[in-house]
């Protein structure tokens, strides 16, 4: 097994006048070649900050990386100089952003923008770069690449711009592609197009993908593995099947239950997760989810749960998985674990 990316105990804070916001509080995960992993969580849970920290794109100040390492094929990205990092960005790690409206340069032809990266990283001449850019436009499904090459971003619709972004980030065949909410700004029918495209590209180029999203729905289709983040920590991680069919963390339960099911005819009440996520300027001592958790134990108040192995490759940070919690599980109306 080749570990492509290894993130260990990443901690990121933002220093603001009111104090220190601990946005990411110790995130550990790894990514293998050609694998696609989703980081799912609500706004403010630290999923985007994690991605930006990996890309070293955080503005500092106010952001500071407090601890941890990000190893790309054994090289710690956090130790690289800005110059080395520039060489790496777009070349070995590509990134797509949420808003395709603002992530393209409005004064530059789209084709040129794609070719620019190729020229920069692959050391080829103008002609070769253009050929490569046209290939990429073909790959992401531009109907008329030659004409599109000479158009400006404002002539593109939202979906087309996101395609252009994908073409740009994949032009140098990066090993890892980080997609930060790539479909959030798009309509459902366009979202379906983009997801289909990402799946297709993944198969063809064997790129590892980190998909960051708040929508559990789109993950099921594209990814192999899911990590659920809450209040700056990964609370549960496992394969798609683990997370959707045998979720172990009450937060994951809550997320799955709070979306309406299409297959039911009856109009039933949704089950929301009550309350609000904690303000990470004053992170809780115990489990961060405890105040909103129906199944909380006394231990959750003071002690932050470690990761428990629920099955092979399936982990959850919840005290309910502790062997001593068997009796309590029954008391709160959960099945005992075998």
């Amino acid at each position, binding site marked *: 097994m080749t570990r492509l990316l290894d993130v260990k105990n990443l901690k990121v804070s933002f220093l*603001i*006048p*009111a104090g220190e916001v601990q946005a990411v509080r110790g995130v550990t995960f790894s990514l293998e070649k050609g694998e696609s992993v989703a980081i799912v969580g609500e706004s403010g849970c630290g999923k985007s900050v994690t991605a930006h920290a990996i890309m070293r794109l955080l503005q500092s100040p*106010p952001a500071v990386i407090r601890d941890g390492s990000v190893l790309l094929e054994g090289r710690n990205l956090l130790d690289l100089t800005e110059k080395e990092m520039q060489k790496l960005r777009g070349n070995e790690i590509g990134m797509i952003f949420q808003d395709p409206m603002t992530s393209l340069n409005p004064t530059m032809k789209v084709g040129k923008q794609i070719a620019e990266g190729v020229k920069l990283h692959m050391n080829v001449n103008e002609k070769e770069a253009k050929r490569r850019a046209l290939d990429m436009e073909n790959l992401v499904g531009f109907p008329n690449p030659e004409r599109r090459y000479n158009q400006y971003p404002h002539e593109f619709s939202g979906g087309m711009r996101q395609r252009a972004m994908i073409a740009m980030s994949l032009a140098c065949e990066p090993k890892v592609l980080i997609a930060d909410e790539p479909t959030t700004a798009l309509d459902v029918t366009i979202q379906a197009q983009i997801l289909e495209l990402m799946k297709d590209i993944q198969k063809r180029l064997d790129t590892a993908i980190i998909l960051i999203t708040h929508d559990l729905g789109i993950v099921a289709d594209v990814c192999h593995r899911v990590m659920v983040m809450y209040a700056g920590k990964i609370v549960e991680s496992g394969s798609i099947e683990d997370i959707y069919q045998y979720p172990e963390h009450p937060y994951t339960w809550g997320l799955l239950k709070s979306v309406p099911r299409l297959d039911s005819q009856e109009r039933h009440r949704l089950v929301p*997760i*009550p*309350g*609000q996520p904690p*303000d990470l*300027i*004053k992170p809780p001592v115990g489990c961060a989810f*405890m*105040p*909103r*958790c*129906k*199944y*909380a*134990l*006394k*231990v*959750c*108040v003071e*002690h932050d749960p470690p990761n428990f192995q629920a099955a092979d490759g399936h982990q959850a940070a919840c*005290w309910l998985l*502790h*062997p*001593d*919690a068997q*009796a*309590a599980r029954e*008391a*709160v109306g959960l099945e005992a674990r075998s």
Partner: protein
Amino acid sequence: MVDPISKMLFHPFTHKIGEDEAIVRPSTTYWQDAWRRLKMNKGAMAGLVIVIIMLIMAIIGPYLTPYTYDAQQLVSEYTNLPSSSEHWFGTDDLGRDLFTRVWHGARVSLLIGFVSALVQFLIGVTYGGISGYLGGWVDEVMMRIVEVLSGIPFLLYVVLLMVVLEPGLHTILIALGAVYWLSMARLVRGQVLSLKEQEYVLAARALGASPWRIIFRHLIPNCMGPILVYSTLAIPEAIFAEAWLSFLGLGVSAPAASLGMLVSDGISSIRLYPWQLFYPAFFISLTILAFNIFGDGLRDALDPRLRK
């Protein structure tokens, strides 16, 4: 797994789920936030301190000497004296105490600055707010009027006013106020245009709020930041404008004096009695510099993009 945690803790914890709607962070208003940022800006604070000192001196300065600003001593041993313990800044060609006159001049200059900024604020904000919010033909007409007025050269305008009204402090105030509100009106209109499509404005309309209420309760308070910065920067501009009007002989009438007037008088005797130019020139520069630095700092402090 070795775990020091007592088994006792593995019991259900009864609590009110999700009741925690409390807000952890202390409440800060927009202005508190801006003040905090302003305090961190050393230059702006220095500017503010200088402005405050100038204001205090403009009020009490003339009373610190036994002389009045217009008391002449037309005896040669009292005229054109350099600095001394009796006359701190010396005297002018009519034997008047320069220290008293400088602070009296500062009083007049600052008054001109503040009053014209206030006039500009009142007219410009109301005019721009109404024009921007109502839009359509009202906006067309109001903006054409502004364009016509700003097409008239400032100097021509002042000379005309001087002919019609009698020269003096209030004429200058009217002239400056009448010119400067134009650009304020444009600024406010621009701000209002960008704000009026905001959903909170739509919400207020949906609630049945009158245009008047929307302009003064919703739109103006939200463009107060740029307005305030603009007003602050308009003060030195007015002081400056008055100074060069004085040069042209269109300033306040003697024996009253503004800083600009004193500079203008001092220039004629620059070779023989340089202090007569130096003191008023120094204080007028200091005032304008202080206002400008403070205004720039204020702009940084009020910039909503920095807001977290």
